[in-house]
């Protein structure tokens, strides 16, 4: 079956512009996660959704970052007024539910470059 998909695969933007990154989780997976992979910080957790709700947004790096999930499926990560330090690969993952033994399946990521 289809895995987690993300779009775009690559995004180049100018400093100060807004970007939207999309994640389509595996059908039926209620838990969805965003991670960021950057040279300086490694792989870091950003936000988690159970259904359409995000109980904890403290992992988001700044208030320029926001995320939403609609219909318990697609999620969008939005970065406003992008900065060069936002350049990274943004990974989305989904799992059947929030239980810790459920495997998180990762998408291929969106590589964001801020010029």
């Amino acid at each position, binding site marked *: 079956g289809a895995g987690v998909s993300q779009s775009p695969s690559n995004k180049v933007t100018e400093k100060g512009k807004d970007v939207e990154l999309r994640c389509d989780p595996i059908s039926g997976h209620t838990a969805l996660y965003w991670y960021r992979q950057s040279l300086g910080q490694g792989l870091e957790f950003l936000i988690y959704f159970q259904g359409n709700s995000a109980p904890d947004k403290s992992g988001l790096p700044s208030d320029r970052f926001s995320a939403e999930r609609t219909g318990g499926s697609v999620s969008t990560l939005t970065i406003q007024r992008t900065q060069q330090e936002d350049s990274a690969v943004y990974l989305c993952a989904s799992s059947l539910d929030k239980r*810790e033994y459920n495997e998180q399946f990762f998408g291929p990521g969106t590589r964001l470059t801020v010029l």
Partner: protein
Amino acid sequence: AQSVTQPDIHITVSEGASLELRCNYSYGATPYLFWYVQSPGQGLQLLLKYFSGDTLVQGIKGFEAEFKRSQSSFNLRKPSVHWSDAAEYFCAVVVFSGGYNKLIFGAGTRLAVHP
């Protein structure tokens, strides 16, 4: 605080040689541990996981890992490396807090395989 340490940033082995990638974790409760592999331009693929029971776990692609509570370690091993194993390997622990779980990753070990 919960953390994962992968002491080796980069390892080079010859094809056919054995491999051991080190992982140490810091977590107060019983850890749920994972090893993921990331090939260039790809997302993360789960190699194996440990939740409980037998401390030696078998994974895909001929990999295994051994959980040692006394050493807080979860080292990944393969008896004979293939050129296709060249990739980056991440050890991770699940942290369950605030009603949801998230993965805390190590910094990764990049494996190069010489013919």
